[in-house]
């Protein structure tokens, strides 16, 4: 009997608290949080420069301000494995300087001028839809100081998208 009363009291108290909560916060539950799963900025960095699944997963949840310390030396080893003859590239960056740039994976964007990954003049001022970003990266990895090294590896010879982009918002093409 005593137990029944206790249970009853618990039930009533419980439902009172529950009702009180509901009344105080109508339609307003606890704060919802979202936890990071994937991130990217420059194209093909995680896919090419992290060699194993553990590093790929870690890269996706490392804040950019901590990426350099965590990944630069691994990226440098990877670069030299991809191209053991690497000295400098067309941006005059040696292996350490180039991988320092790449390991902090943010897209540098100009808010005052042309936005392009590389257009022959502007370097890393954004990324436009028709930028041939893969050729730029292949050239910087394999092309040597003048960009003329390893000619078979510095362009994939796919120079544009398969369909044209729009000049008006939302710019991307209708799906296939």
């Amino acid at each position, binding site marked *: 009997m005593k137990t029944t009363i206790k249970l009853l009291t618990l039930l009533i108290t419980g439902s009172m608290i529950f009702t009180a909560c509901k009344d105080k916060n109508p339609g307003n539950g606890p704060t*919802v*949080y*979202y*936890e*990071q*799963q*994937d*991130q*990217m*900025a420059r194209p093909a960095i*995680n*896919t*090419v420069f992290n*060699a*194993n*699944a553990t590093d*790929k997963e870690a890269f*996706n949840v490392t*804040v*950019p*301000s901590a*990426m350099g310390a965590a990944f630069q030396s691994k990226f440098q080893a990877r670069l030299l*494995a*991809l191209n*053991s*003859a690497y000295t400098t590239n067309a941006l005059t960056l040696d292996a350490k300087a180039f991988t320092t740039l790449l390991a902090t994976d*943010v*897209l*540098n*964007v*100009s*808010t*005052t001028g*042309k*936005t*392009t990954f590389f257009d022959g003049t502007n370097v890393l001022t954004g*990324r436009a*839809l028709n930028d*041939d970003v*893969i050729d730029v990266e292949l050239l910087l990895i394999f092309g040597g100081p003048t960009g003329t090294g*390893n*000619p*078979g590896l510095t362009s*994939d*010879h*796919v*120079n*544009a*998208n*398969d*369909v044209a*982009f729009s000049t008006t*918002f*939302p*710019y*991307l*093409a*209708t*799906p*296939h």
Partner: protein
Amino acid sequence: MKRKKILFAAIAAIALVTGGIIYAADHIDAPSVTNQTTDITDLYVFQGANTDNMVFVANTQGLLTPATTGAAKFDENTLIEFNIDNNNDNIEDLVIQCKYDAASNMMKVYGPIAPSVTGTRSKIEGTATASVKVTPYGASAPIVATKNGISVFAGPRDDPFFFDLDQFHAILAGTAEGFRNPGVDAFAGTNVMSVVVEVPKVALGGSGKINVWLETKKKV
């Protein structure tokens, strides 16, 4: 010639180490995001047709074929977040958050706004600044909405990325010495789920340069 041989030997060795698995821009980049609504394929940031504006493109859920695109959906539990650093310390000063609401079939945009907390865990910041109905697959024209100077689109689009990925795989596997000419675009004919947000540049702060990165976050 000798140098070339050494290079290919090095590449082949890497292919062995990684099992030859090298993906694309960011499509299926790590096991835990593969085939998830959180899988980013690409980020684009460029000046708008109106050069006072900046355009942010987040593409997710890549390699959709015409047969699978109709069933692809945005996920209420996935937050798509553009991070903007405007003082060059690689820490976000502003975010633009995009969150799908299934009940209304709308993509809601929050920001650009200074986040209450930075890093890998986020909450929705402020109230929606713009929102748009998701454009269904097969629609003759994209559905676009503009509010507070912010334009937004959400829905399936052609994957704008292009790359002869198959030949790159062959090179890494040691079965090819170089790229083909002409190459073959492995992403031709495939679609992605896109969110496109265009905002006035004055809302981005900074002094001519910003750093941007794209994150997806999953409801805890």
